[in-house]
């Protein structure tokens, strides 16, 4: 077996409005060049699962970075910081877009990366990954894992998330992979249908896979929503999609 190794560490990058935010990155050892993956963490925060997922992409040959969308909320235990973010109504869409563009540009500027970048997010991060992909031309692929509130109800227009991401579908700039559970409520199968119809209407390149026997968050092995069969298949689809569009 060939020698294997990776480096994983926290870094500081320039986020929205060039404000410094923290990020966690992992990459294989060696000069590369490696294609890149930017991970957008979920509502429960910049958590251990996202550290693990970042290292998983490095294990598969990518330079991966997960930026801390809650950096400005405060420092401390990830659960406590996420609770404070929730009490503040989450983070503003415009800020998420700026922070994610910062992470993309940071990883692109490294000497060990190619010019190919993919973005992936789950839960609220799935929504934000799609939203970002509709506001940039800097990436080559995007993956939405069960992102809720891509479709927002008419009475769901909070100040920080004023426009439903589905309304920006016409601006989607790269191929999209979406994985969803048919027992999910957010997004519901009907909302996934609405999103798919919008993608078709605008002639966008996308793949949606919908799993029976799964609801929300079926990759999370530490939660009761975990579904091993659907998660295994889903991870295979994630890696196949990024290999197709990013190489690696």
């Amino acid at each position, binding site marked *: 077996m060939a020698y294997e190794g990776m480096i994983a560490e926290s870094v500081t990058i320039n986020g929205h409005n060039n404000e410094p935010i923290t990020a966690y990155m992992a990459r294989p050892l060696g000069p590369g060049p490696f294609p890149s993956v930017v991970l957008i963490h979920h509502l429960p925060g910049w958590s251990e699962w996202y550290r693990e997922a970042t290292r998983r992409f490095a294990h598969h040959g990518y330079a991966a970075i997960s930026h801390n969308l809650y950096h400005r909320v405060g420092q401390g235990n990830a659960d406590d910081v996420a609770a404070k973010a929730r009490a503040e109504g989450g983070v503003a869409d415009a800020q998420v877009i700026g922070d994610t563009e910062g992470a993309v540009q940071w990883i692109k500027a490294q000497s060990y990366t190619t010019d190919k970048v993919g973005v992936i997010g789950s839960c609220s991060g799935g929504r934000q990954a799609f939203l970002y992909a509709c506001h940039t031309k800097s990436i080559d692929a995007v993956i939405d894992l069960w992102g809720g509130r891509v479709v927002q109800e008419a009475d769901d227009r909070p100040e920080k998330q004023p426009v439903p991401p589905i309304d920006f579908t016409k601006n989607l700039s790269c191929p999209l992979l979406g994985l969803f559970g048919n027992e999910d409520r957010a997004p519901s199968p009907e909302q996934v249908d609405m999103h798919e119809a919008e993608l078709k209407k605008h002639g966008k390149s996308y793949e949606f896979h919908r799993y029976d026997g799964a609801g929300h*968050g079926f990759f999370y092995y530490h939660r009761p929503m975990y579904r091993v069969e659907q998660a295994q298949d889903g991870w295979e689809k994630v890696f196949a999609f990024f290999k197709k569009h990013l190489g690696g």
Partner: protein
Amino acid sequence: MCTSIVEIVDAEGAGKGSDGWFKVSHAVVSYDHPHHALLEDAISLDFVNHAQGPGARAAVELTLDSAKALKAALERAIAAAEYEESGRRRPIAA
């Protein structure tokens, strides 16, 4: 957030967090993904003092049924407390 269900009220009192007791400024009630309870969604109660940072938090995550039972218990206890505070004695149960 996946549900956007969050209610926040001013709260006066004290909570015990990971670093000991702290002065509570707000109570946050939400229904969304919990951090620890083995549920897809949970009623979360966070007693916090945001001026002291994210760590000033006493948290519980409950099932919807548990939250309903808690609400009923709070109402009973508050009614009894208000009766007590009114200066009257409660009738002795038969």
